[in-house]
């Protein structure tokens, strides 16, 4: 259950720091106004933003109507309320009906794109797919070397030119190569860019256009990599990237820290995007399919205790 790696790996220190809801919900306390205020605070500190306020207001109403009578009820109710907001949020990366499936990966600077690509390539290769990587981050120093390192390590092909090359041209070559070599998946790495940078966002648009010249229904998925430690700005990122590229799903990286990634709830309010994967470390094994229950447990913080109790 849950994201096992978190539980195993960094549990101790994580617990020490993360206050979680466990202290509120597990302490045999009376359900009252104070407790609900504390609940709001805890939800806020998980980056739920306005969603946290909404949920607490709903909880207060349910309490007044006696639908929630005590802390145990509240716990169940909360879990459900959070889960409902994520309904329909899981999904699987699609497969093109013929030819290579093209996955375009984008996101702001340092969010974890390149590492996520390595993890994804490893995942797909393990499932018996032929994967090719494309180094379309031609801007950042040694971005190509970084991706090359991963390609070598995983044992997949990479299509690249040097730093400074036209990223769209590299992508075009890569699509060609993927078709010629009969690859199952082509994963395109792109440079980090802030969604406020108009010219760079146009560059991303251009990459999409160029890929489509070769395979009209590609990219079959455009994955936006979000850093779980990011606050409310993640919502803007999701909205703005969706404007210029056909973003079809999210990867939430760096969930192995103490951040809860609650900005996802804010994103779900505005955009109907599935969350495919979570990143839980820097290695290629550190990727797991998104699991809404596990995620909600993580936000509520008490899952860890439960896990420990049952061993």
């Amino acid at each position, binding site marked *: 259950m849950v994201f096992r790696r978190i539980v195993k790996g960094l549990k101790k220190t994580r617990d020490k720091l993360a206050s979680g809801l466990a202290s509120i919900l597990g302490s045999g306390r009376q359900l009252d106004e104070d407790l609900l205020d504390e609940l709001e605070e805890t939800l*806020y*500190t*998980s980056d739920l933003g306005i969603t946290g306020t909404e949920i607490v207001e709903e909880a207060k109403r349910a309490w007044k109507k006696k639908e929630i009578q005590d802390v145990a009820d509240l716990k169940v109710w909360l879990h459900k309320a959070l889960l409902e907001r994520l309904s329909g949020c899981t999904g699987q990366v699609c497969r093109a009906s013929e030819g290579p499936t093209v996955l375009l990966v984008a996101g702001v600077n340092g969010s974890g794109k390149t590492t996520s690509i390595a993890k994804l390539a490893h995942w797909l290769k393990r499932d018996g797919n032929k994967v090719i990587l494309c180094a379309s981050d031609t801007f950042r120093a040694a971005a190509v070397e970084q991706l090359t390192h991963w390609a070598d390590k995983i044992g997949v092909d990479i299509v690249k030119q040097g730093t400074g090359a036209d990223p769209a041209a590299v992508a075009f070559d890569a699509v060609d190569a993927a078709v010629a070599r009969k690859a199952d998946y082509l994963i395109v790495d792109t440079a980090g860019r802030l969604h406020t940078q108009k010219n760079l966002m146009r560059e991303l648009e251009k990459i999409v256009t160029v890929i489509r010249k070769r395979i009209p229904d590609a990219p079959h998925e455009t994955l936006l990599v979000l850093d779980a430690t990011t606050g409310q*700005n993640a919502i803007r990122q999701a909205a703005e990237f969706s404007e210029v590229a056909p973003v079809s799903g999210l990867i939430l990286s760096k969930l192995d820290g103490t951040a809860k990634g609650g900005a996802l709830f804010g994103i779900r309010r*505005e955009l109907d995007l599935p969350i495919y994967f979570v990143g839980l470390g820097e290695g290629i094994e550190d990727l797991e399919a998104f699991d809404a229950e596990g995620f909600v447990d993580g936000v509520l913080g008490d899952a860890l205790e439960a896990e420990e109790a049952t061993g």
Partner: protein
Amino acid sequence: MFQNLTDSLTKALSVFSGKKELTEENVAEGLKAVRKSLLEADVHFRVAKDFVKRVQEKAVGQQIIQSIDPGQQFVKLFHDELTELMGPEGAILPHADSGPTVLMMAGLQGSGKTTTCSKLALYYRQKKKKKPLLVAADLQRPAAVDQLEALGKQLGIDVYKEDVKSDPVTVCKNGIAHARRLGHDFVILDTAGRLHVDDKLMKELERIVEACKPTAVALVADSMLGQDAVNSAKEFHARLPLTGVILTKLDGDTRGGAAMSIKAITGVPVLFVGVGEKPDDLEAFHPDRMAGRILGMGDIVGLVEKAQEQIDEKEAARQTKKILKGSFTFDDFLKTYNMIKKMGPLKKVMGMLPGMGAALKDVDLDDKQFGRVEAMILAMTPYERQRPQVIDVQRRRRIARGSGNDLQAVHNLIKQFKQMQKMMGKMGKGGGMPPELMGAPKKGFRQGKGARPMGGPFGGGKGKSPGGGFPGAFSLRKPEMMWLERTPDQAGPDLGVVSLHAPCAGLMKHLPAMESVLDW
């Protein structure tokens, strides 16, 4: 999504009219607005709560200065307090008394350490005439050494590296020895990104500190961090003798509340801010600007500074009068535009206006496009510029030809200009914003997606919104403040580029007032 704080406060604090001082009751709504604004900016819940409480205590009992909007007085109070909290201004790195100054970087993964290393090396070489050495002590992330090396090469700055099988503590020690030997007086240690909860890697940093006794340790933090910023900052602070914080990626649209959380929790000053990916995108930290940004007031201070240098106050006042009389001409338009242009790229200037940042984000507010409009106006005769109503189709054809535009563009410009004139005229007569121009949010506008305020030569790019709406909710009470009072989700008529005239002139007119708000 982010409602301008000044907007919401003006609303919340309307209860003040006629009151003499700020009391617990009449500031309650205002406090809520401030707290909300802080939380939207990602300030940690606790930090926001404590801060608001502290300022509330100071606020209660203050006299309301009648000449100033109580909302602004209130914001000013918070702005000052936050500026103080975020201070000091321009904290500097200590330097070693003997031997090279050693600066160690630390931070979470992807926060911007390596990039910042190169920025600092360049900065200290250019500004302080130092001879820097970069030490590649991130042996963990694939190609981290290559990255630092490439940056060093690009800037002509030496990089010390060892085989990745070495150990970071050893690399740092050897790097410093290398610097001594070769006469480098400024050494920057690039370390691997790590989670604050990763005990093993945190210990490694402690060992580097012990072995190398760095002159300064900088925490590099991403300004987009959310609530978790306090957890990581607290732990890095507990483990390392932090000298300062460097905030990165402030070139985006994050409100940067994490900066406040980190400062409040650690007390460590902010040294520099990163405002781009290039080596020279490093700036000194200004607590007042950061405070404005976190509070959601726009960079008023920066704007005032810029404007003071460039704007002719008398001219500005004259323009505003003309606007309100509905009698401004294409000449006036050019004059205003030229003044604004001197302040910097249009989008940047407009973006500094409170509440405008978010609204402008979707607009291709490109000086080149503005240049097209300028060309059309310059292709008019002086007579035409003064009397837009005489520009008939024949004249329009000539203007189109003369400016290298098509006829439609000229049609649009003139249409927009007339609409603007008419609307401003109505406002000036005390009619308020004509209801038909107020416009309910147009279809397709989504709450929280930020407005797409302008059509015409600017906004039309994506063909999604019918444009319009810049002036939004103008209020007559204070015409010179109209640009402060627009609500982002209100759309109006299609005024295109011309609509910039009003806020620009309004802005200029308002400057003296703004100054007094900021200075008392």
